C-alpha cells in the first residue's frame, strides 16, 4: 500500500484555503487541526459564541487557562486582540450569513455536494447533529477535510449518500489524505493528488465519478 497523507498534512492543505481576513469555523476532527496552521489574520469562530480567538492551550498549561474561555469542543483558548464574545443568536446569525468559510469533517460526501457529518447513532436517538447542519447550510464556502476512506477501506466520497445527510448540495471542496476535489456543475473534479499517487489510483479509491482536471497536480502544503 502506498503512503497516505497524515491527518496533520490534510489539515495543512485545508488551512491553505484560508487567507488573512477570512472568517472561518473549524469543525470537529481534522478541521480542528487547522487551528495551529492557519495564516496570521485568519479569524476563527466557534459556534458557542466567540470570534477571533487565539491559539488553544495545551493540557499542561492549566495555570494560564481562563475558565470562561472555552470553545464549542471544550478546549481552552487564548485571548487575541479583536476577539469578541456573543450569545447563540448572534453566533448562528453569523453562521448563516454567508460570511464564514466552514471547514467540516465528514463521514461521507457525495459528488452532488451532499454531506453527512453526524452519524445516525443508536436507534433514532443519537443524531449528533449539533451546529453542523447550520454550518454546512450557511457557509460562504464549505470545505470538507476528512480521510478518503473509512478504517475498513470503504470510500467516503460517493455517488449518493448511504447514511443520513447533514445538508444537501452545499460542499464546494473536498480535501482528503489522497486528493483535492472540487464540486462543480459538471461533477466532481479531481484537482490535486497526494504525492506519489496517480489520478487513476485515487479514482480506484472513490465511489463517485471523478473528472480529472487538465491541470491536475500534486498537493502542496
Amino acid at each position, binding site marked *: 500500500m502506498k503512503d497516505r497523507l497524515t491527518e496533520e498534512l490534510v489539515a495543512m492543505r485545508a488551512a491553505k484555503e484560508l487567507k488573512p481576513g477570512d472568517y472561518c469555523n473549524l469543525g470537529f*476532527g481534522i478541521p480542528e487541526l487547522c487551528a495551529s496552521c492557519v495564516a496570521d489574520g485568519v479569524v476563527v469562530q*466557534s*459556534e*458557542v*459564541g*466567540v470570534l477571533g480567538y487565539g491559539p488553544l492551550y495545551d*493540557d499542561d498549561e*492549566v*495555570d494560564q*487557562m*481562563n*475558565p*470562561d*474561555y*472555552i*470553545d*464549542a469542543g*471544550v*478546549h*481552552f483558548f487564548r485571548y487575541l486582540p479583536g476577539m469578541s*464574545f*456573543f*450569545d*447563540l*443568536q448572534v453566533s*448562528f446569525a453569523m*453562521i*448563516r450569513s454567508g460570511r464564514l468559510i466552514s471547514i467540516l469533517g465528514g*463521514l461521507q460526501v457525495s459528488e452532488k455536494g*451532499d454531506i453527512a457529518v453526524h*452519524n*445516525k*447513532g*443508536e*436507534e*433514532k*436517538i*443519537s*443524531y*449528533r*447533529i*449539533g*451546529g*453542523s*447542519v*447550520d454550518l454546512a*447550510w450557511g457557509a460562504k464556502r464549505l470545505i470538507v477535510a476528512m480521510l478518503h476512506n*473509512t*478504517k475498513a477501506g*470503504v470510500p*467516503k466520497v460517493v455517488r449518493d449518500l448511504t*447514511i*443520513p*445527510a*447533514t*445538508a*444537501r448540495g452545499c460542499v464546494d471542496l473536498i480535501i482528503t489524505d489522497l486528493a483535492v476535489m472540487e464540486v462543480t456543475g459538471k461533477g466532481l473534479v479531481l484537482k490535486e493528488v497526494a504525492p506519489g499517487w496517480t489520478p487513476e489510483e485515487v479514482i480506484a479509491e472513490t465511489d463517485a465519478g471523478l473528472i480529472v482536471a487538465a491541470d491536475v497536480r500534486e498537493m502542496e502544503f
Partner: protein
Amino acid sequence: MDKVTTATEAISMVQDGALVAINFWGPGSPKYLWQALVDHTAKDLSIYTNNFWAMPDDIKAIVGPDVTSIADKTIRYITGFADVKPGSSATCDKIIQRVHEGSLKFESLSHGIFMDKLYAGAMRLGGFYSPIGVGTVIEEGKEKRVINGAEYLFESPIIPDVGLVKATTADTLGNLVYTGTARGANPVIAMASKYTIAEVFDIVKPEELDPERIGTPGIFIDKIVKIPEDDLQSRQRRMELVKLRIEYAKALEEQKSQGDAT
C-alpha cells in the same frame, strides 16, 4: 421583590410535567441548579437542552451532574445534539430501553434550530419557516413550504415553563453579567421562559454593575441563586473543574475515536 434565594427553594416551583430549558454548552452551564432539579421531586419532565451527552458513568462521577441524570423522571428530551451509546453506561442503556418501550421521547434539532425555537418563544411568534434541515432527518414530520423557490420547514416556538441559566455576576434586581463563552443560550432561555432561575458566582448591589455590560436585564430573572463557595461549581474552585474537564475531554476523545469509526 427579593429575588435572592437558595437552589432548593427556587427549584421547588418546578411542577410535574414541566418543560425545563437549560443551557448545557460551554462555561455557562448551570450545573449547580441542575443538581437541585435532579434532587427535586417533580416528575414527567420535558428537558430542552443544547447538548445531550450520555457519558460513561465514570466520567459523570468526575464532572458532576449531567443531562442524563434526570432520565428517570423525564418523558421527553429535545436537544440540538444527542449522543447515546449503547453499553457505555447503565443510564444510557436504560434510556435506549425506554425509548424502545415508548416511555421516553427524543427530538433532534440542530444547535441553530434549538436557539431559533426559543427566540420564537421569546417573541411569542406562532411559528417560523427554517431553511435548516431540509433533506435531513430534521425534516421528519414537519410541514414543508416553498417560499421564493426555496424549501423551508415549519418550526414551532418553545416557551419553557422554567429556564435555568448561569451567569458570572448578578445584582439583587436580577441583572446578569456574562463573561467569555458563558453566554450561549442563557440570554434567549431567560427571555423565552415563563419563570427563570439564575445561578451566579457573586451577587452584588445594583450600583456595582455597569449598565452597558448587562447581558440579561433583571426583568427576565425571577430567582437568583449564589453558588456556595465550597461547591465544585463555585468561582473559587473553577480551576479544579478545569483540571477535571481536561480529564473529561481526554475520556471523550477516547470515546470518540472508538465510536466514530465508520
